[in-house]
């Protein structure tokens, strides 16, 4: 199969046991010149150790401010078929379950109107269609919406495509209907998703439990993470079965053989709060000290389960380093029931957005605004009460902005009276 460009360097990436994107692209390149030129341009990048895409370029579909990333080759002379190579972000179904029917339809559409290459999935969660020309954008959008009931995801200074873990669909630990929560905020905030009105991007991610399989705490402006307020459910028989070597520990994650669980070393000593005790027969958990880290549950999934008074912890402000440095999300609501119609949550989000839109500078992430104005400013804007659960530690620096309302007489001074008491 002779392709247009020689790709000796890329060919090296066809070797080895891991799947080869080069082999994959090559088979499409045989029938799609766009992919042929993509390989050629990539080979050039490998030779020159520099990328060959021009800077951005605003393209999109009518009425939407996001969902398409414009891309143009900086060597259209050599690679005319990737002169345009835009991506379209297609909003994935929550937690990425597909029917093959949907997928085949998408493939057909993309074979016809694009490069035939996709990212499954983009880091934010979208099904990313990789590489098409400007004239194809509207037809693709039309077919997506009309024929497939699908829509574009976010890009630009708007809500980005929300995303969540598999949750209750296939995980025993989920304290939340992650799919429903993600679907709800995707649908409720369609306008925010498609039409930039924010200072910068905004991301929701939802994990069903503190294991956080969608990395919400690291990657979302608003992380919704499942938790419980009552007690870990214990099946003492199963505990004894683990200790007796009758079960596979950690659900097999460290080897699928049954083995005796050294409950002291592997569970109790690793519990961050040391709130467990095993007397040889029964496991006791002082739930009031438990911080719901999941470790014991992870190790003994057949013996322990999260409680039943479930809800979410909301953490805000995670982001990548640009501009002010990377941030993990901070606890803003220690516990909130997350049940349809999610009114309390919507109210919170909308207050937060109002505050951000009012105070945020251009390209200032909500997390940076929290940094700049302080967590208290956010709490106030959202009618939340300060709580020690929001902090790792109270302040250690003494530079306190006291409220003049708490000072008798406020900040007024009587300089004359002062100088009567004190000679200068």
């Amino acid at each position, binding site marked *: 199969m002779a392709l247009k460009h020689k790709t000796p360097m890329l060919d090296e990436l066809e070797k080895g046991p891991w799947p080869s994107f080069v082999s994959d692209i090559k088979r499409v390149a045989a029938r799609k010149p766009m992919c042929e030129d993509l390989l050629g341009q990539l080979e050039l990048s490998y030779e020159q150790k520099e990328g060959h895409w021009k800077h951005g370029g605003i393209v999109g579909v009518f009425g*939407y401010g996001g969902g398409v990333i414009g891309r143009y080759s900086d060597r259209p002379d050599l690679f005319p078929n990737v002169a345009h190579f835009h991506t379209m972000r297609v909003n994935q179904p929550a937690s*990425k379950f597909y029917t093959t029917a949907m997928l085949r339809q998408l493939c057909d559409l993309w074979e016809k109107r694009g490069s035939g290459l996709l990212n499954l999935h983009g880091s934010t969660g979208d099904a990313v269609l990789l590489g098409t020309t400007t004239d194809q954008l509207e*037809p693709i959008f*039309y077919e997506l*919406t009309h024929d497939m009931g699908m829509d574009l995801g976010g890009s630009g200074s708007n809500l980005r495509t929300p995303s969540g873990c598999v949750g209750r*669909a296939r995980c025993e630990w989920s304290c939340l209907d992650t799919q429903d929560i993600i679907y709800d905020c995707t649908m409720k905030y369609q306008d925010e998703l498609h039409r930039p009105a924010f200072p910068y991007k905004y991301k929701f991610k939802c994990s069903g439990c503190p294991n956080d399989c969608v990395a919400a705490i690291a990657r979302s402006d608003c992380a919704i993470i499942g938790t419980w307020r009552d007690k870990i459910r214990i099946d003492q028989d199963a505990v004894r079965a683990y200790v007796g070597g009758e079960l596979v520990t950690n659900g097999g994650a460290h*080897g*699928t053989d049954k083995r005796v669980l050294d409950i002291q070393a592997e569970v109790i000593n690793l519990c961050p709060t040391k709130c467990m005790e095993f007397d040889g027969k029964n496991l006791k958990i002082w739930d009031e000290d438990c911080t719901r880290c999941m*470790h014991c549950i992870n190790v003994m999934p057949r013996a322990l389960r999260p409680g039943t008074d479930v809800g979410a912890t909301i953490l805000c402000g995670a982001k990548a380093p640009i501009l002010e440095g990377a941030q993990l999300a901070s606890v803003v609501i220690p516990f909130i029931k997350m049940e349809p119609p999610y009114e309390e949550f919507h109210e919170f989000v909308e207050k937060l957005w109002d505050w951000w839109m009012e105070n945020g500078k251009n390209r200032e992430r909500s997390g940076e605004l929290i940094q700049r104005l302080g967590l208290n400013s956010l709490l106030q804007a959202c009618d939340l009460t300060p709580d020690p659960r929001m902090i790792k530690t109270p302040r250690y620096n003494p530079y306190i902005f006291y409220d003049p309302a708490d000072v008798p007489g406020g900040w007024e001074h009587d300089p004359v009276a002062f100088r009567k008491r004190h000679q200068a």
Partner: protein
Amino acid sequence: MPFDPNNIMQDRITDIGPPKYDKSFPPFIKQNYGKWKYHEILEPGVLVHVSETGAEVFTVRVGTCRLVSVDLVRDVCDIADKYCSGYVRWTTRNNIEFMLADKAKLQPLIADLRSRGNWFPIGGTGASITNIVHTQGWVHCHTPAIDASGVVKAVMDELFEYFGSMKLPAQVRIALACCLNMCGAVHCSDIAILGVHRKPPFVEADRVEKVCEIPLVIAACPLAAIKPKKVGDHKAVEINEKRCMFCGNCYTMCPALPIADQDGDGIALWVGGKVSNSRTAPTFSKLAVPYIPNEPPRWPTTVNDIKKIVEAYASGGRRYERIGEWIERIGWERFFERTGLEFRHEHIDDYRLAMTTWRTTTQFKF
């Protein structure tokens, strides 16, 4: 009615959002939604989840490139149609999960996948190295310092034994981002591969006023290294190179400030981040290797340094201990000794929170 290019508003549908999730739930998922009781990994890459109803769902997880063709997706559909009632899902780390309720189909599915060369490696569960979360690289983005897919391929080839086994002390999550924008969880990964620039951008003075909004460019620099400057007739900017730390944010705002450079660009490696709240709190990845040159097509130094880290961890970590927890226990001084990586001035933070990273105790190991 088909799309009419001359009347794009005709029948226009917008704001419909994604298909509702449960439309693509297989029946056995719908029936057991929220009823799962426990799970077990039967062999690397193969899980069973057991419901309170007694139902079981078997999952086979396979690695893929994240960059896939319609041909590959169609192969996936063929497999899913044959064994999985026409349903399939992707994980949050770009693996594919084939799920089925009928145990009888499990071994045939596995055999089928294995028969397809290196397209569908089974693994990525438990204490393994699962798929590398990554970004666009030279395949699509305009700001990368490195390629993404190629580096990932080279690294996964080398670490392949750990994808299909569960013999590491704990999960090792690797992520790659091709520039400091870090489109992914690179800042909180067990091992992170990051594309870095090492040369300040240069100013194309005659283009700046044409293609950029100068105030936005100036505001974009976290270190206020950019000032307006008139060059000849042109309104342009000037970069105080000594202040620049190569973040590339000015280039994001202004194409007339190219920063990519074959000699300047390369890879930095980071270690010890995590996301889960299990045992220890989520934490950032820390610098392990400040710079490795771009070495396409197979980035041997990068691959080798990662291998060193993984092997030191594999032999020194204790069960359940993520890389960061292992380092926390042995100390950074030992980490550098055991991996043989060099400790250099770049490791010592000198940005805004730098003083919170210095050692303010006499506790350390000789």
